[in-house]
């Protein structure tokens, strides 16, 4: 089954479907890359909710959390559950997606910012290293999940909210 993958990279990959240069808060530039692929296309790539990607959106700042291999919590662990609950309870954002590379662990997240003080308190960023990246033409806004349901649907990256038959 084809999935959507993204990565935050130092150099532009040859085979990505979309690449955009983003500005990191420390002043450096990085490449935001996206693929639609049957298999993980790059060692740094992770699967994402496809609804947060698009070319027509406004400038968006993302809190991009990447959890290193060996330090990825189970998706159902209490700290990941509480991060999801917190976002669905007080939606501060343009959108959010978990990053996943397998069916059981959380590999990271991207939280798209709509402004406000909570941005510097991204609940997923409490779980590991995070960078703040600004870009345009890569992410698009996504409305808040309906709730209170917050499970993954067949292993799809949260908050994608349908079973795909």
């Amino acid at each position, binding site marked *: 089954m084809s999935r959507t993958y993204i990565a935050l990279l130092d150099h532009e990959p040859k085979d990505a479907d979309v690449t955009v240069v983003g500005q990191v808060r420390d002043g450096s530039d990085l490449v935001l890359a996206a693929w639609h692929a049957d298999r993980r296309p790059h060692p740094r790539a992770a699967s994402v909710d496809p609804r947060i990607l698009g070319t027509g959106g406004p400038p968006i700042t993302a809190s991009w959390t990447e959890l290193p291999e060996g330090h990825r919590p189970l998706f159902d662990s209490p700290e990941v559950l509480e991060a999801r*609950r917190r976002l669905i*309870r007080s939606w501060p954002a343009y959108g959010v997606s978990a990053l996943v590379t397998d069916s059981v662990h959380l590999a990271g997240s991207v939280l798209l910012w709509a402004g406000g003080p909570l941005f510097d308190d991204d609940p997923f960023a409490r779980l590991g290293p995070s960078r703040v990246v600004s870009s345009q033409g890569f992410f698009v806004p996504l409305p*808040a999940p*309906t709730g209170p*349901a917050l499970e993954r649907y067949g292993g799809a990256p949260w908050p994608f909210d349908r079973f795909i038959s």
Partner: protein
Amino acid sequence: MTEDEPSPDVDRRRTWLTPGGRLPDLELPDTTGGLRRLSDLVGGDPTLVHFYRGWFCPKERQFFQVLAALQNEAEVAYTRFVSISVEPPEVSGAYRAGLGARWTFLSDPERRYLDVLGLRETTDTVHDPYTPTCVVVDPDLTVHAAYRGYWFWGRPTAEELRHDFRSLTRSLRPDWDPPQ
């Protein structure tokens, strides 16, 4: 017919409000002000659609306690809630935050759907709200169960909602009996 009884026109508009009827696909702003369509919010899951009077009603405050407790089960059960009132988004948002609710609240301050649905509470001329009503719907907005909450005991208990969600989930999920 007395003044307090619904007219035949209202009865016709309420024909959706029985098992097998179909809830119209409403489009209203959520607490962030963004327009949301009910069918998108329901997605592919059993959903409670809850029309309520407003924060001012003590019966609503009591019933929300039931839903707020039930949300902990719904969050792991692929089950959704949507609450709808005539209060504007900022009021609904503040009320939602105070309840600790983690589901979507929609606002109909222009009262677009009160008469479309036949749910105008004619006895409250101060707030002109929705008549308290709960429906459990399947993904195509077909009504599985309906509860009229004008009198508090007309509202569903948590146990009745559990039974409705179980019955609807059983009919929706082909793997209800685990694959062998």
